[in-house]
């Protein structure tokens, strides 16, 4: 390179030390880019060419070589720039392609997002940073939208479930609860709140339902009590007007509710009770709020009066009397039953009394008749004393017959019960009854062919029928009809309670005897079974007929009820318990009428000295050897001490502190061969189990005759 004739920095006395030419000796400033000519920085060579062309230093210094050199430099630069431009073109083309692809992906993703699918994701790599960033932002946006969508779904699902649960609860499904495990704290809190609220509501509703059910049940119970009660219920206002009444109260008084609402309680009670009732109200109800239970009478619509039992209560509102209400019980039936019970008790008391008297009489009569017999044996019939003693004996026998009837009433006679067919017994009696009732009276027999069996003493049943038929006949002096009916009956507790009798429900055989006679007056019907009660003329009846019937029926475990309408007739219905056994064949022991004498040893146990002495005298007179005592324990001692055979134990059934059957059992254990014969006037309750003896058991009924005693003794010893 040729040296420069003149240096620019020297020529212009330049002080630009930063200029690349400053201080140099051979650099041509027009070929150097970035010079600092006169305070201005000249950038690239092409930029400074125009400046250099106008520059004095260039014009004066440039030469051909310098010019060529400069052109070379410019050409080199042009080539460089063209290459650069070409490279930039390629680069720009790539950029455009990546941009188009990236934007296309982004657009596609946005399209899917906008259609509601935020799950879309695109690759984020791109050589173009804005595109990469755009794609990244698109993905982040999709993620954000997906998160929001997920949240909205979670909220929607939870809302739907809450809605469903609340709807179910509102429909009464108190078990409905929000389930699920929401990820969102707010929803979890809402679930807890909703479920807790439902728990509370559910509890409250359940309690309320229970309370309502209890209230309904209570109301039902109250209604049942109110309407179903046999007691009447009535409420009145302070003027005494009936404002409420249950159906029992209406039925009791014969009014309907509307009729009652027009009545005051004074209208429903006889006037004589008004002052009594006022006094109870003043002294009890208004003072303490209620009354004691008191009895008074009420008046039905038809005017009939009936007894009632009442308790009245005060009804208050805000501490002030508003009215009263009362329970009213019709006690007509109870009063009737009380009267019947009282009657039954009276009959029982009379029975005990007559039984006791008859028993003592029997012993006395036994002695009178027996001694009379002995006296008669000692005197010839021609003897004037004979007929007098005979009269004594006859009077004694009449008294004994009366005593037997009394015993029948008092149910203390010995019944020899057996299984029997009542129809057969009645049929056998028919022939006997017809002549007895006479031609003016028609006797009808209506017997149930399927009639059950009974267990009874046939002789006593005959006595019942006879007594009732005789009464019926006497009640129809101008003729009429007597009907005898039989049938099977099932009697329940209600039947017995209706008759004021202790219930003994079961199967019974019914015997009814009806007549078309004059009937029995209501005022005397409760007395007809009492001993010595008679409506017959003096001398025509003993007054013991119906009481005997009553006693036999009762002792046979049966019941008797009279029904009578004066002027129309009377019916006696007798119910006897049905028995299951077979009918006894009726074979009776044939009495051997051979000689009544004997030589056997008899142990006589009888506490009544008169009877004992009489029996002893009779037996000894007829050849027997008699060991006697009045005490059961003494009898056992005699048995132990006496070394010879004892053939017969003749014992009273009733003994002080013991009884005949017990003594017999104890003696038989020591002397198994000994035979036993009992004597008795009655079967007292103390030995009730002997009240009905086996038909085969031999018994001497007191009072006995000599022949009667001897025959029984002989039969037993020979049997």
């Amino acid at each position, binding site marked *: 390179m040729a040296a420069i004739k003149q240096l620019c920095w020297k020529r212009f006395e330049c002080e630009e030390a930063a200029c690349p030419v400053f201080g140099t000796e051979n650099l041509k400033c027009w070929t150097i880019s970035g010079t600092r000519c006169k305070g201005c920085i000249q950038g690239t060579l092409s930029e400074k060419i125009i400046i250099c062309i106008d520059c004095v230093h260039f014009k004066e210094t440039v030469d051909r070589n310098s010019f060529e050199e400069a052109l070379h430099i410019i050409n080199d630069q042009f080539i460089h720039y063209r290459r650069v431009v070409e490279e930039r073109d390629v680069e720009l083309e790539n950029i455009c392609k990546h941009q188009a692809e990236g934007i296309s992906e982004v657009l596609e993703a946005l399209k899917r997002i906008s*259609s*509601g*699918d935020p799950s879309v994701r695109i690759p984020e790599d791109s050589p173009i940073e804005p595109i990469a960033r755009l794609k990244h932002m698109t993905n982040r946006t999709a993620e954000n939208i997906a998160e929001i*969508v997920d949240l*909205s*779904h979670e*909220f*929607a*699902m939870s*809302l*739907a*479930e809450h*809605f*469903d649960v609340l*709807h179910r609860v509102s429909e009464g499904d108190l078990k409905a609860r929000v*389930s*699920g495990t929401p990820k969102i704290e707010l929803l979890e809190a809402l679930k807890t709140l909703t479920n807790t609220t439902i728990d509370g509501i559910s509890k409250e509703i359940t309690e309320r339902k229970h309370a309502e059910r209890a209230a309904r049940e209570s109301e039902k119970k109250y209604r049942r009590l109110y309407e179903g009660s046999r007691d009447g219920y009535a409420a009145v206002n302070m003027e005494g007007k009936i404002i409420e009444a249950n159906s029992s109260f209406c039925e009791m008084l014969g009014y309907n509710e509307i009729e009652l609402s027009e009545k005051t309680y004074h209208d429903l009670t006889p006037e004589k009770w008004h002052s009594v009732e006022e006094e109870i109200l003043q002294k009890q109800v208004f003072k303490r709020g209620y009354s004691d239970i008191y009895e008074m009478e009420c008046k039905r619509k038809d005017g009939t009066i009936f007894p009632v039992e009442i308790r009245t209560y005060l009804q208050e509102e805000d501490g002030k009397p508003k009215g009263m209400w009362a329970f009213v019980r019709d006690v007509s039936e109870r009063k009737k039953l009380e009267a019947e019970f009282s009657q039954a008790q009276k009959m029982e008391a009379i029975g005990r009394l007559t039984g006791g008297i008859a028993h003592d009489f029997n012993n006395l009569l036994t002695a009178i008749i027996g001694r009379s017999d002995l006296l008669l044996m000692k005197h010839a019939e021609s003897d004037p004393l004979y007929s007098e003693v005979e009269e004594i004996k006859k009077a004694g026998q009449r008294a004994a017959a009366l005593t037997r009837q009394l015993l029948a009433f008092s149910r203390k006679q010995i019944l020899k019960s057996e299984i029997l067919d009542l129809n057969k017994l009645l049929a056998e009696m028919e022939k006997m009854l017809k002549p007895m009732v006479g031609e003016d009276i028609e006797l009808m027999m209506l017997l149930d062919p399927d009639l059950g069996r009974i267990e009874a003493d046939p002789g006593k049943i005959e006595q019942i029928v006879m007594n009732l038929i005789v009464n019926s006949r006497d009640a129809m002096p101008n003729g009429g009809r007597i009907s005898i009916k039989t049938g099977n009956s099932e009697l329940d507790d209600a039947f017995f309670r209706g008759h004021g009798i202790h219930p003994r429900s079961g199967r019974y055989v019914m015997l009814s005897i009806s007549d078309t006679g004059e009937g029995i007056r209501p005022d005397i019907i409760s007395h007809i079974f009492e001993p010595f009660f008679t409506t017959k003329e003096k001398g025509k009846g003993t007054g013991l007929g119906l009481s005997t019937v009553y006693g036999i029926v009762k002792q046979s475990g049966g019941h008797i009820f009279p029904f009578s309408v004066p002027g129309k007739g009377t019916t006696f219905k007798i119910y006897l318990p049905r028995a299951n056994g077979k009918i006894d064949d009726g074979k009776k022991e044939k009495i051997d009428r051979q000689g009544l004498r004997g030589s056997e040893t008899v142990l006589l146990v009888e506490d009544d000295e008169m009877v004992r002495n009489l029996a002893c005298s009779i037996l000894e007179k007829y050849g027997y050897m008699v060991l006697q005592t009045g005490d059961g324990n003494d009898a056992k001692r005699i048995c132990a001490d006496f070394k010879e055979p004892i053939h017969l134990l003749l014992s009273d059934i009733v003994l002080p502190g013991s009884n005949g059957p017990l003594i017999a059992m104890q003696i038989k254990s020591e002397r198994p061969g000994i035979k036993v014969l009992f004597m008795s006037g009655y079967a007292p309750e103390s030995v009730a189990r002997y009240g009905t003896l086996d038909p085969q058991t031999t018994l001497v009924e007191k009072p006995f005759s000599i022949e009667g005693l001897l025959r029984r003794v002989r039969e037993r010893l020979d049997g």
Partner: protein
Amino acid sequence: MAMEVLNTLGLKCPQPVLKIAVKATSMKPGDILEVLGDCPTFEKDIRVWCQRLKKVLLSVTDDAGGQKRIQIQF
């Protein structure tokens, strides 16, 4: 036993579920609800709803154009 149809075409999820929730209150046990929808998450949403509310998803039918027909028994 009745069958009813609920059209949720054009509705974006979760709107169909909310519509079904409201409709459910008038459905009786045994009734069938047929729901039409075209939202991309329609089937998934209905499946989740049935599972959570213990309803029986009877069938899912793909109709043309991204539409689905789902039967639910109550």
